[in-house]
């Protein structure tokens, strides 16, 4: 599976992870190109549906990237997001997509290096999991 390059959608909070990703870029830190970032005002805005829809459209993994505990710009949006991710993981196990494809990660705005490292690690994890199983099914069905 070494030639498998996962596509990962990152829902990144503007106040931390999205900024951290900008910082990572400006620090010229590399991470796999499959990482694609969608900006959200707070991870509390990340509807479970967005995550499911991303998987439905073929993403191999989804990261919800919010602020560190206690640092949410909106008090506790990140905790709500974390709770949703937890429930989503259960659902994904139930439908055999696998809970490992979704993670909640936390960082602060200045942590460009953390963003890059998190991105690399998650891509590696998804590489282990293999491609989103629906890709195969979709190509079969087509």
């Amino acid at each position: 599976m070494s030639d498998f390059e996962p596509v990962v959608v990152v829902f990144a909070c503007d106040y931390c992870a999205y900024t951290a990703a900008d910082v990572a870029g400006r620090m010229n830190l590399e991470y796999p190109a499959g990482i694609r970032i969608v900006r959200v005002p707070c991870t509390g805005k990340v509807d479970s549906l967005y995550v499911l829809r991303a998987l439905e459209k073929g993403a191999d993994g989804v990261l919800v990237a919010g602020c560190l505990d206690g640092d949410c710009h909106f008090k506790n949006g990140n905790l709500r997001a974390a709770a949703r991710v937890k429930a989503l993981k259960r659902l994904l196990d139930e439908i055999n997509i696998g809970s490992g494809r979704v993670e909640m990660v936390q960082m602060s705005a200045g942590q460009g290096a953390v963003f890059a490292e998190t991105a690399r690690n998650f891509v590696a994890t998804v590489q282990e999991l293999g491609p989103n199983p629906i890709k195969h099914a979709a190509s079969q069905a087509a």
Partner: protein
Amino acid sequence: MAKTDSPRTSNSVLVLGGGIAGIKASLDLAEAGRQVYIVEQKPSLGGFLPLLDRQFPTNDCNICYLMPEGGASQGLQRVHTLPMSHLSELKGSVGEFTAAIETKPRYIDTDRCNACGACLAACPEGAVVFTPGLDTNSPTCLRYPQATPQAFSIDMEKCTKCGECLKVCHPDAIDLDMQGSSQELEVGSVILASGAQVWDPTPMEEWYGYHNFPDVITSLEFEQLMSAAGPTGGAFQRPSDGRRPTRIGWIQCAGSRTTKPGGNPYCSSICCMISMKEAIWALEHFDRDIEATVFFMDMRPMGKDYELYYQRAKNELGVNFTRCMPHTVERNDKTGDLVLSHLDDAGKLQEAHLDIIVLATGFCAPADAAEQAAVLGIEMSSQNFVAAEDFAPVSTSRPGVYACGMSLGPQDIPGSLVQASAACGLASAELAPPRGLVLAESMPTEKKITGQEPRIGVFLVDWGNVVKESVDSEAVLQAASGWDGVVFGTQLELAHGSRGLDKLEEAIAEHDLNRVVVAGYSPRTHGNLFAEAVRRAGLNRAMLEMANIRDQDALVHRHDRTSATDKAVALVRMAVAGVRRAQPMHPVKLPFNPDALVVGGGVAGMSSALSLAAQGIKVYLVERSRQLGGLANELFRTLEGGSVADELGEMIAQVQDEPNIEVLTDTLVVDHQGQVGAFITGLQSGPGMYYRQVAHGVTILATGAKRYEPTEYLYGADDRVMTQLELEQRLGKGEAGDLLDTVVMIQCVGSRNEQNPTCGRICCRSAVKNALWIKEQNPDSQVFVLYRDMRMPFMSELAYRQAREAGVLFVRFDPSNPPKVSQEDGNLEVVFTDPILDQPLAVEPSLLVLSTPQLAADENTEELCDIFRLQQGPGGFLLEEHPKVKPVDTPAPGVFAAGSVLAPASLAEARTQGLAAAGRALTMVSKLSLVLDNPVAKVMPERCAACLICVRVCPYDIPFINADGYSEIDPAQCLGCGVCAAECPAQAIQLQGYEDDRMLARAEALLEGIL
């Protein structure tokens, strides 16, 4: 600070000089509702800044934040730029000056010129002038695309009036018979910001070989040679033979700290940082395959946390540092090597062979400084810089005339910006109170686009060609052209400047676009800039979506062009999908409470309070202890010998007498809520903890630092061991007499070590101050100062020289071999190594003085951060919004900071920052209303099941079920987090810009083609 009795009728300020300091002062003033005239002698604004490719310590290019076009756009129309002009006379007095301005002919009409460059190409004499640089005529050197005004000029001294240029100028902008003009301006105050000039090494060419050897260049020339936008396009070659250099050396203090004729006695303060930046840059540029060596006497990274930059350069990035006295430069004609002879630490003569030598030239006063001072009627120092004092750091001898930036002496950008904001605060106080400000920009009416089919324009913006290096831009545009709704796509050349933005606006009109995608920058940093342009083109600001293909693509995947291009396509497709569903957004206006809260009653806080109060603003000044004054209460005199106590006492009295200031001593801040313009802060006073809340619109934090309590060198165990501050107390009270026989001072105690890697910044100056004072009280005393680097910026270098001349012995020690202090039978002994003799020396001091730093008041600052939702930086000091461009702003809008809460600060710095924070606060306070343009949550009543979930999840308790039985969200209060929208079980709540259909469309577009 003498209070002026000004008539306060004018609302205008004259700013002399269009460099970074002048621009900053103008922008702050304009934002605060003032009319500003910037008078600049050159054809365009910018000063030194456009000559620099990047800036320490972030090694970013922040030009976009600093220049008028890229910075705050509010109030820009109140800035009147007068290029090629100078002040010829200043009549009248504070509040009612009349300034006579002479303007030279430009020979090009700025309203018509579109800076196409045809004239420049056509001119056989090289008389057409546009951008300063290594080659001042180079049309390719467009490092400064935001030049204001965006127009060429003609140097009539070179012009032969051949008329070639007239033929090629299509806009018909050239008028070779143009006459100069003069005018008189009524202004209330004046800010001098005409800066300094780079010291020219020509007079000392016998030492440095400048001119004699082409491979000896100045810092600024090096910068131009290295710049990708420079004359060589970044292909760095040795000027003499075009060879790729492998050994580059920087010679520090070229022309500074010298008594040699042609040189300057003071320290230029910023050259150490510039050289380090250049050395790091060179190492990066050549993939570390060169030797970069800095030859220096003392490294003086003076700004906040600059010491960390030095340590990183030395320990991580591979810059060589050779401590020496640089002597002469010669050239080995056989090898072509430059040979720098220098005296090493042990006093031995050494030679270094180099390919290129960069002279870290300092700065000096402009040639016409004295002349200008005469016109202004202000006093100058011996070096022709404005003579300012610690307690009046941006004031001149003439009331109503202020100074900032390099007019006050060489300094870095944050220092200039702080002074600019400070001067602007003071200058503003001399004016009529701003009232009834008309803030409405002259914007066209928004086009109605409801019901229209999307007509989307895709603009690829790549200033500096960063994106193109990794991404096939054409392929991206090609892909975009096929997408639903995309009717136009182009690369926007130099879109960063007004020229590019004009093009954007033109394209919107020309192609009747109703939605815009800009691909290139992060929406966080550039969203506002492009949104303004979109708005100017008659569209709602929300009709813009940005694709972050620079920071989150090109910069990350530069080794994989294919993937980077694919990803760019996906990101742009996401933006297109998003913008297709964009809905107009309309900002909300709220009343703005103009009162201010200043936390901390030290010099910085009092300065802020006084400056604000002078503008008629009600200030609550909160101080934790029982008395005002803070750390300055323990100081007696300044380095120049002025009395701190007198000045401080006067300042405290002023604060107490000021009716607009309510002083609350013995008071703590315990809670804080609200937003800029409408803060509410809970305070607690006295041992009984009386609680009250104050309502205010802006906040200035100036809670200061704490002293380091040394544990080293028998401190606390022997009465003869004390800190500089304690010594100062004794000297001040005349109680040090017996101790002043043999005095040893040890520098860097508690700083620049593992526990505290930062530099204390002001301890060297304290040591020199006290050493001189000791010599004054007892000329026979023997004083040793054991130091690592003597950090004496600008004129304090003269005091250092004076101390050496007075017989104070300065002995350097290496941190690996620090002085040893012992006590036996009551005899104190200090053993240290003399680097020249390389021998241990033992001294039995009557007094051992430790130079200890100010440390962050960690616990206090931590709590302050907790309450005000801010962050701490290295060493626990408060983290500012941006160390370079927003030095006294914090990330929380409406909250500013000043003084040693940010970093160890001298009295003058604390005072300046206090004034600057007030100046910054003024830009907000002057607004009558608070405009909220963040996205807000909207309820679709027909879907609402009134389930109360939004009411329960909102972190700010904003939604409620209204009389009609559905949820209602006040747009003025909603902060736009979107939690309610994400939790609404009926999908009845949508957050503007992040509506569900839009979010899903984005995600789908991002993943299109995968299945």
